[in-house]
């Protein structure tokens, strides 16, 4: 059996293995729109840099999706620009979520926006970082109604404080909860722990050590 650990990660993960000409024609038809479209990652990047200069940074293209980050104070300005610009037109908020990186001092919480330009069919990922001590981020509910619950969910699980949100309260967890459970300081229970008396559930514990099953 050959070992096929993936070594390289190009943008195309689901490539066309079959060389059937009919399929190739089909593929050409489907990608024709992409080739005609003027909007590509390079154009987006240039327009963003022309507008915001070196405040937008860390441009990457993991698996073909343009990703960049900016200071958190600028999130609303950048999203507004992406929304209004007649060439960019990123008017659909696909997803909004947060990620916790406890190791990065001063930028522990990342808020990630996934945007979609439905006219040219281009996707974009935009990140901002906030310190966990004061995770204040401007809300984007004025731009997208859909951000309302997504921001509530993000607040519920990570404690990101969306400044200006019309109704920032917990949504999936109980209102009385006093912590933010998706942060990394709340690990899932280790399945191999032995400090609990779980003998009745088939796991270790003092009773097992005494030989009582």
């Amino acid at each position, binding site marked *: *059996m*050959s*070992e*096929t*650990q*993936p*070594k*390289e*990660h*190009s943008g195309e*993960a*689901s*490539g066309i*293995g*079959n060389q059937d000409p009919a*399929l190739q024609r*089909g*593929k050409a*038809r*489907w990608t024709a729109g992409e080739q005609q479209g003027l909007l590509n990652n390079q154009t987006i990047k240039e327009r963003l840099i022309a507008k915001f200069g070196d405040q937008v940074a860390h441009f990457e293209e*993991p*698996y073909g*999706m343009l*990703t960049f980050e900016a200071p958190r104070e600028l999130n609303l300005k950048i999203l507004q620009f992406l929304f209004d610009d007649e060439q960019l037109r990123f*008017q*659909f*908020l*696909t*997803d909004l*979520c947060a*990620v*916790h990186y406890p190791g990065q001092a001063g930028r522990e919480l990342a808020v*990630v926006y*996934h945007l979609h330009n*439905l006219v040219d*069919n281009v*996707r974009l*990922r935009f990140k901002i970082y906030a310190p966990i001590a004061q995770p204040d981020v401007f809300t984007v509910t004025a731009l*997208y*109604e*859909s951000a*309302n*619950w*997504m921001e509530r*969910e993000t607040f519920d*699980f990570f404690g990101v404080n969306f400044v200006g949100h019309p109704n920032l309260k*917990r*949504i*999936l*967890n109980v209102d009385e909860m006093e912590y933010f*459970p*998706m942060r990394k300081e*709340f*690990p*899932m229970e280790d399945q191999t722990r032995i400090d609990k008396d779980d003998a009745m559930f088939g796991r270790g514990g003092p009773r097992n050590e005494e030989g009582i099953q």
Partner: protein
Amino acid sequence: MSIEHHIKLPEGSIEKTTTTLNLGPTHPATHGVFQNILELDGERIVSAEQTVGYIHRAFEKIAERRPLYQITTLTDRLNYCSSPINNMGWHLTCEKLLGVKTPKRVDYLRVIIMELSRISDHLICNSVVGVDSGAFTGFLYVMQYRELIYEIYEEICGSRLTTNMGRIGGFERNFTNAAFEKIEKFLAEYPAVLKEFENLFNRNRIFMERTIGAGPISAERALNYGFTGPNLRAAGVDYDVRVHTPYSSYEDFEFTIPVGSTGDCYDRFLVRNQEMWQSLRIIEQAYRKVQEFKGADADVYHADAPAYYLPEKKDVYTKMEALIWHFKIVMGETDIPPGEVYQSVEGGNGELGFYLISDGGRSPYRLHFRRPCFIYYQAYSELTKGAMLSDAIIVMSSLNLIAGEMDA
């Protein structure tokens, strides 16, 4: 003794002229555990406030401790009316991250399964719209064919509702002849059933008067509210992930995207019905394509990815390498490459997205599900403002709200 000692009423409640009605969390008409607090003026809805989260199970947190193949069972429980789509979406996400290329036959088999689940999803949603408008017949009639779809699942993976179907790279086993026979049976019999289902509803005067104009939304508002799937298409936007970002070789199939215009319950109903016809077209094409594979190609049902695809049981017992891979996969000892990937599929009720961040460990560093109905349920209060109480029920069922997906 003054009255305050006995009755503690909220301020302003004496002068209040509206009625508060709790619709849910456990109400037969909500078809799932979620609550609506309606403020009623007579029978008119003044405002609605939605509450979700009653069956939140912390899937995203659990996923941070699980190896990739164990997360498939979590995706089953998102939109449980079409769990195979969720399963395939998750496998596609993993394959994108790991760089696994799936053979064409696997793609086509997946397309068959995904379209079957789309039909079963739309079938339930549309017939429940019928039930909520007082027409029970359609629901009972089509249930027989959802049963047939579940039997097809059963032939393929052994389970019916929470399917846990497939593996990273393909399927756990090849489709049996019985499965293909059942798919043929479905293709032969279902068009007549769907036609009759449409005859029951489409021009039914009572149904039309109940649904036309109920819960309408404009295309612009729908996009702003993050609508996707049939609900967005009913508002007139032809956005479909299968066409815009083809996955699993959807680019090889001919089909159209039905769109509505007003975004009301009737349009949503019609769009779903039309999508079922399109799904049938796709299944037919995919079935033909699968039948064209001959010889050794006809036995291909998974990609060659030994580090992630469980080897056959026979090999595990007889070959050392297979045993080692089996052990490594089952114990979750295969590290996944670092990376960041977003993959979406056209789920039963919209764009189901998986945002996966890996730091090179054995389980995802972060996994986020983009659950379509969590996002579009926000629009409910706008959809029902000023409507009748009975419309509130029908709008809810025609949005295809699945509590499991909303709460994750």
